[in-house]
């Protein structure tokens, strides 16, 4: 008993000193933005002793929600705010431009789809690859959950807001979509251009290859802005980190590695 009483205050004391030494900057939201923020956070930590950057996924809606409630210092999002969300006092900083790539399995012979074909596939009107010039295989749709900013942007830009068919596998993150499409012969999905690897095949959309050049010249239509959201103007560490991400060094380095930098 006596020992216990001795132990508790000493535990509390070490807890306090640790908290005083390192400030934690919490960032959460879009899984599209996640790898970039993680990489930028590591460099930021190296340059700013005593600040820890904690990064979490969850989807754009989760990021916006976390910024509103203050659960995170910065919420990240790959979609624009809805009119209701815009009224909640959030300050929106665009940190990069991204394209949404439509991906299929590397074994799939189909390498381009028209806008109408994409719309037909994702709304459930076309259900076999044969109908769009592929093999006689039932199409396996891989969709994101409703928290996803990528889903929201795809719905708006590729489907003109015609609802998705519900007959699709729902996955909670960009990485999961990529890994399932990469291992399922008949699958199709959509992910951020920054996430595309050799495991999956990007297809041309409306005759245009998703690439940085085609984002900049505006030819590739499925593009969107990536956002940092803060409750009020960014302050303290949040401000320092936002400026850090917008700095030339990070914009031409980490950001341009996966996305297109914002204009100066």
């Amino acid at each position: 008993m006596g020992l216990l009483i001795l132990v508790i205050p000493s535990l509390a004391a070490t807890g306090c000193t640790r908290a005083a030494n390192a400030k934690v900057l919490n960032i959460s939201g879009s899984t599209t933005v996640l790898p970039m923020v993680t990489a930028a956070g590591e460099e930021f930590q190296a340059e700013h002793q005593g600040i820890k950057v904690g990064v979490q996924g969850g989807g754009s809606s989760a990021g916006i929600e976390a910024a509103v409630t203050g659960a995170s210092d910065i919420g990240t999002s790959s979609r624009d705010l809805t009119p209701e969300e815009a009224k909640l006092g959030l300050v929106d900083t665009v940190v990069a431009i991204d394209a949404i790539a439509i991906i299929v399995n590397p074994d799939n012979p189909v390498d381009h789809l028209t806008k109408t074909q994409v719309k037909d596939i994702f709304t459930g009107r076309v259900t076999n690859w044969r109908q769009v010039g592929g093999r006689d295989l039932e199409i396996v749709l891989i969709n994101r959950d409703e928290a996803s900013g990528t889903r929201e942007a795809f719905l708006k830009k590729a489907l003109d807001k015609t609802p998705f068919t519900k007959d699709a596998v729902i996955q909670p993150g960009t990485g999961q979509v990529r890994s399932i499409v990469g291992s399922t012969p008949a699958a199709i999905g959509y992910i951020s251009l920054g996430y595309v690897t050799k495991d999956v095949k990007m297809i041309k959309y409306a005759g245009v290859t998703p690439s940085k050049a085609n984002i900049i010249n505006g030819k590739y239509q499925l593009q969107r802005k990536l956002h940092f959201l803060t409750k009020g103007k960014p302050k303290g560490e949040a401000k320092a980190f936002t400026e850090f991400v917008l700095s030339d060094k990070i914009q031409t380095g980490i950001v341009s590695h996966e996305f297109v930098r914002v204009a100066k």
Partner: protein
Amino acid sequence: MNFLKWRERALESLFLICALTAIVGVLLVFIFVTIKGFPIFEKVGVLKFLFSLDWSPSDNKFGILTFIIGSFLVTAGALALGAPMAIMTAIFLSEIAPKRVQKLVRPAVELLAGIPSVVYGFFGILIIVPVVRTLFGGSGLGLLTGWIILAIMILPTIATISEDAIRAVPKSFREASFGMGATRWQTIWRVVLPAAKNGLIGATILGMGRAIGETMAVLMVLGNAPIIPKSLVGPVGALTSIIALNMSYASGDHQTALFGMGIVLFMISFFFVALIRLISRKRS
């Protein structure tokens, strides 16, 4: 003397407090979930919430019947696969296996119960999903994969409790049966299993509770589509996995609807506990 008495009292109240914690915990969770979830019944209407198939939170449509059906489909299949296997394991362990084999199999079964569910999910994605995809086509994420994973997960629960129930059957029953000239199989099938019936049913219901409440593993392998599956391998959503998938970002009515689903889950597990109580009372 006085000190001993005081100590006795203090210990008694310590145990009482521990026991009360369980009750307080259940009550707090129940009250909290009800308060947070109840408004959805008023907003959408109980019938529409429970019996509408249309779940699209972004359009403010909150019908959860798809997921109730999904949860029961997933659970029923897992039981159909897992319960016979578990009960046969229990029979093997208590009636057939020699001591040495028992010592090998029992820890293995118990170990199965200790594996975290996220590991089961990972195992499902890496091993079961590719097999199902190769055999049946589609994505491999869906009902059948969920059944297989859950069947393995509920096996230890059902097997260990069934074994206890079978062991509780008095030795004299078996001796009488053998004495009448019955074979081992006849003894197991006609004497031991009927005598242990209530215990076996209880074990199965407990396994059912575990299956319907499982979240992480099913989230990873079911595919989470808000539809009634069109085939055995089609994607499906369960109440638990949809709550887990949605809770990080849901707000407003959507969040309330998730708590409403929590109330439904609470009711289901309440029903299971009541059922087990009823059966065990019959036995005694």
